[in-house]
């Protein structure tokens, strides 16, 4: 019981990070119907920028952890947002309205570019960060097995929930959110009704990149070790989460993220660590066989 609870806590923390990345995938997919393969690498760049920022602040002597984290997060999110904007502008916008495989290949190319750019500029080694947020609470003690809920895990869940709340407000209550939802339903009609679709799409990429940066920073703080390749596996997992939840659906992305996180940590805890990805991907395949549009996705009805 205690062991299960611990795995549950770990799984939820991991799932929150996947959920944050998955929101970026699902938003872009919802609006322009393409898999933004470079999104995982934007997450990786966010993690690198956070590490650089924390090192800079450490160098100039800012010791207060909350201030350092907030400052670094804002700056890193701004720079990654610029990455998101540039990627869309350079690699995807020229292919708008083209057939669907061209943006996919362009996105794969962009992902390779970002990954190798970081490898060339920052090296291929693992970079480590000293734990910044230590301690936690013991929830339960069962025959010597102590269930730990670390402050870090609390922070992951709290940050994710706050960010998602803000984001939900943005999408459901603001003018921009209305424009985004309109574009999602029908891009051409939205532009006829006076919505600047190019701008809305750009903003979608910017927001997605900023959310990925939050995920990247949390990942860095939680695991304490990053390299240029983390974007690939996290990206694939987050995309799996988005598809599992029903691509295009925001609550679905978070639900899918939590599901993938839980499957991974429970499988690692009870079966075998090396096969955790196999478990996650198998669940995806099985769910899609029975629910071809994911858990919360709309059925894809084709009109003739």
């Amino acid at each position, binding site marked *: 019981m205690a062991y299960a609870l611990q795995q549950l806590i770990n799984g939820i923390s991991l799932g929150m990070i996947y959920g944050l990345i998955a929101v970026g995938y699902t938003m872009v997919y919802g609006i322009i119907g393409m898999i933004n393969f470079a999104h995982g690498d934007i997450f990786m760049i966010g993690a690198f920028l956070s590490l650089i920022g924390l090192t800079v602040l450490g160098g100039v002597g800012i010791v207060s952890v909350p201030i350092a984290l907030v400052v670094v997060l804002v700056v890193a999110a701004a720079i990654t947002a610029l990455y998101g904007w540039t990627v869309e502008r350079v690699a995807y916008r020229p292919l708008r309205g083209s057939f669907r495989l061209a943006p996919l290949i362009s996105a794969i190319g962009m992902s390779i570019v970002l*990954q190798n750019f970081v490898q060339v500029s920052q090296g291929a080694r693992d970079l480590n960060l000293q734990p910044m947020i230590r301690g936690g609470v013991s929830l339960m003690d069962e025959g010597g097995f102590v269930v730990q809920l670390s402050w870090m895990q609390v922070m992951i869940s709290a940050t994710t929930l706050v960010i998602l709340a803000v984001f939900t407000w943005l999408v459901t209550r603001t003018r921009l959110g209305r424009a985004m939802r309109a574009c999602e339903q029908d891009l051409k009609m939205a532009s006829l009704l006076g919505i600047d679709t190019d701008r809305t799409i750009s903003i979608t990429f910017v927001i997605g990149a900023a959310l990925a940066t939050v995920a990247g920073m949390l990942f860095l703080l939680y695991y304490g070790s990053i390299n240029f390749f983390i974007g690939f596996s996290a990206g694939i997992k987050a995309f799996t989460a988005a598809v599992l939840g029903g691509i295009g659906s925001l609550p679905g992305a978070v639900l899918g993220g939590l599901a993938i996180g839980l499957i991974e940590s429970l499988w690692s805890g009870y079966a075998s660590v090396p096969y955790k990805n196999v478990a996650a991907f198998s669940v995806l395949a099985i769910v899609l066989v029975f629910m071809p549009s994911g858990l919360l996705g709309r059925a894809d009805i084709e009109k003739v």
Partner: protein
Amino acid sequence: MTAGAPALRTALRDAALSALVAFGLFVALIGLKLVPTDQGMTLQTRPWALAAIVVAVFVGRLALLGWRAWRPPGTAAPGRIAEGLTHAGRLVGPVFLLAALTLPLYGGRYMIDVGILVLTYVMLGWGLNIVVGLAGLLDLGYVAFYAVGAYSYALMAATFHLGFWTALPIAGLLAACWGVMLGFPVLRLRGDYLAIVTLAFGEIIRVVLINWTTLTGGPNGISDIPRPTLFGLRFVGSGDPDTFASFFHLEYSVTQRFVFLYYVILALALLTNWVSLRLRRLPLGRAWEALREDEIACRALGINVTITKLTAFAMGALFGGLAGAFFATRQGFVSPESFTFIESALVLSIVVLGGLGSQLGVALAALVMIGGSELFRDFDEYRMLIFGLALVIMMVLRPRGLIAGRTPSVALGKRREIAAELVAQGRG
């Protein structure tokens, strides 16, 4: 030109803005470098690299704007070249074939080696073309079948001591079986759902290869895979009567084996091409293309969609498996590292860049991509970076691929080129 000055001012402002964006992008990642030390991290500054890249972006943007403003109206140059290629297809194909057949006569050992690599990807491209280009099913996990073929051959050769020519078809058939097996659960999925599940299958196979140590040797892979023989004649320099060199009374040279491997893969690739060209004329091949154009119409016309999709997966997997077996015998060694997602992405980009469904286009794209990235072998660190950039640029310039138009497989009366815009890409 009276409009010159304001135009120049706009261009300069645009370029300055690009430079500013570049500064924002690169200030942290190029301007600063993280260096791990015992105490944690320190930073190294690289102001000159940052300045250089910002200036490069400024100049590059200005040059691009200038070129756009001054270039003669009409189709862009890359477009014209590709149009030309499309029409000269009848001529270009045989010329390429002749060049490929005679390569060992004029190419050195390095050329032959690159030729083997390019042809392997040509074969993979033609194999995946059946799935993506003809049937319109987006498969992001093609490397799975390549891996199955390679490991099947490696295991058969290592465990049962089967020769290359016996094991090759078996490896192909096993891969085809896997194609059907993986095809079954995804029959109902469409578009990107299909893409992600095939990607997941590719990853699952790789993870299993890494972790099932007792069977696959784990990350170390399987080594000492026997080389192929020519009717039992081996390509070694031992001087035994059953070696190629002594049988034909030749002086042994290592190039002989490379030439032999080259012709093996050329034959396999041509087989793939021939089979897919022939299949396109069968009802089955027509059903594939019909499926790509419109699945609902297909069903309405009584085409069995299940069988059609599964055969496409199986045929694609078969050729992937054959190429995998060849890869294993060429390397003499297989390990999971060779079967990552990037391989699937590479083959898919060759198919898309070639112009989905065009046999010649795929071959050209493989030559450009693989041969091109060989040119940058000396810049190992930057090779993938350049490769990714090339992928983006080529896609932006030619979203429909190098050879976009298509000749119909079946036509009433005169066979006319179909414009790329009229060919559907499939939603499956």
